[in-house]
């Protein structure tokens, strides 16, 4: 029955993806200026521009162009870069693992740091630890990642020489960008964990568990955390999406060869197919993460599971 839910949730993904790709395609197609003229340069004749427009299908109405783009995408064809004349999908496939690696390491750092901090802050509400932790968290979500990145470069690569200041040549290259990217999500996951923990530990069943003599650690980990984790999961999902978006800035600061930097470079080069491809890949990844989180809910929260079992049994 859980499978039924998962399947339904995956089906719901398609209209959203269609909408996202169409929207991005439409926005980017609004870009003023003749693409064919831009590719051919200033010396091109009107006839050759017109010919290229015809070849590229730029004279067709927008929905037709979108349909063609979509059809290509189903075959893994995302068009040809204006700048390199190579397939967009090749470049994206080469770069995407780097962005993913960065985002995954960041989220691992965030989750391992933030959840314990949030739990302890909630248990010791209004203590020195709690106050310090929450002020730090507030600073963390208020710090611009690109500035933090520059400060880390100044301190740890230019100053102490521990890590490289950019690129992806050494295995240590990923450390500074991952920290930079992870700070904001660490802060907001910690804040959410704290407030959902606070809500849960006031519930009657926690008092019951304590009253019947369950050890304090067990009450927190077994009884409280399991219920408090659900809002936290939502935030982790949202933050992972934010990480993908934040990667655009962080990759620029650290010259990290991911999709974010590819997108920024492509915008500056007016390489529309590459921009479109990167935005589409980002949005698809974002939607997939949200899907994964929704499915994970069903496993963590038995209420969702039983909801579906009841429906299945009724049928």
């Amino acid at each position, binding site marked *: 029955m859980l499978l039924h839910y998962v399947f339904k949730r995956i089906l719901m993904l398609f209209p959203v993806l269609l909408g996202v790709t169409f*929207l991005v395609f439409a926005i980017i197609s609004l870009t003023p200026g003749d693409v064919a003229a831009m590719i051919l340069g200033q010396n091109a004749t009107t006839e050759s521009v017109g010919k290229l427009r015809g070849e590229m299908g730029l004279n067709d109405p927008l929905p037709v162009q979108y349909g063609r783009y979509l059809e290509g995408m189903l075959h893994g064809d995302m068009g040809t870069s204006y700048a390199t004349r190579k397939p967009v999908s090749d470049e994206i496939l080469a770069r995407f693992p780097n962005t993913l690696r960065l985002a995954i390491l960041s989220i691992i750092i965030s989750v391992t740091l933030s959840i314990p901090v949030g739990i302890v802050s909630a248990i010791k509400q209004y203590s020195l630890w709690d106050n310090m932790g929450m002020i730090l968290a507030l600073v963390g979500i208020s710090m*611009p990642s690109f500035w933090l990145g*520059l400060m880390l470069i100044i301190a740890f690569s230019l100053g102490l020489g521990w890590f490289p200041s950019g690129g992806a040549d050494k295995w240590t290259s990923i450390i500074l960008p991952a920290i930079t990217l992870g700070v904001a999500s660490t802060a907001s996951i910690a804040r959410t964990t704290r407030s959902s923990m606070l809500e849960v530990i006031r519930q009657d069943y926690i008092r019951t568990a304590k009253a019947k003599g369950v050890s304090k650690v067990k009450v927190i980990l077994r009884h409280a955390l399991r219920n408090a984790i659900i809002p936290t999961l939502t935030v982790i999902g949202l933050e992972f999406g934010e990480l993908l978006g934040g990667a655009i800035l962080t990759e620029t600061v650290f010259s990290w060869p991911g999709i974010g930097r590819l997108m920024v470079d492509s915008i500056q080069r007016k390489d529309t197919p590459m921009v479109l491809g990167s935005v589409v890949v980002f949005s698809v990844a974002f939607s997939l993460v949200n899907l994964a989180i929704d499915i994970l809910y069903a496993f963590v929260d038995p209420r969702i599971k039983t909801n579906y079992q009841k429906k299945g049994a009724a049928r």
Partner: protein
Amino acid sequence: MRGNRTGSEIDGGAETKGGGRAGYVWRRFRKNRLAMVGLAIIVLLIGVAIFADLIANYHDKVIKINIGIRHQAPSLAHFFGTDEFGRDIFARVVHGTRISLFVGLISVGIALFFGGGLGAVAGYYGGKIDTVIMRLLDVLLAIPVILLAITIIASLGVSIINLMIAVGVANIPGFARVVRGAVLGVKGNEFIEAAKAIGSPNYKIILAHVLPNCFAPIMVYATLKVATAIMATAGLSFIGLGVKPPTPEWGSMLSAGRGFIRDHVHEVFFPGLAIMMSVLSLNMIGDGLRDALDPRLK
């Protein structure tokens, strides 16, 4: 403030003390030390933005190139030092306050107007209208805000106006959700039914009765969103998609100073600090407002 009397009994107790609900919220807000610090910082920043021209002359210090004094370290003559063109960084940060606060407020205004409108209509009418609006906005929500903003600027072109449009539009779905939720909460009240019974037109009910009672959650959300809008503005300018030089914008100052971080840390330190202080103060105020308006968790 008619509708709020239906709220919790704490309200009633506070109202007898005088000052009404606003007074009650203010008293709670004032007790929150972080929120008061945030308020002090933002009042200072607004003052700086208004009196920027009195603090530093725009032409002489902010945009005039003065090669003789480039890359100077902070000193009494130049509190934050000078940049690669010999411009005073303190003066540029001061005038940057104007731009950041302005762009932040206008873009949130755009998002509030359109997103709030859509959300109010969706929440008030419900049914099919609600489904259609919210499904369409779900599509927008599937794109991270900064990515949507980048896409819009990439197609409209780089300018301050387009920047405000992009950040504003990217925030529309969020505002629609929040306002819709708030409207749903207010819609069931008896005074709405009463307004309908005496034959008030729907648009009047929404504007005069529903929205004023949704003020609290919208206010909190808008405060927090001005903070993220300021951050997004700086970020977009940092990657060359926001405010263009020589206009003194914090993000583009950071981007310009990036090439000199080895020897001239001050050129990136101070603009970044300004971004952080403004975002931090708004976040403190937003948190404080939320706690003051919704006393459940504290």
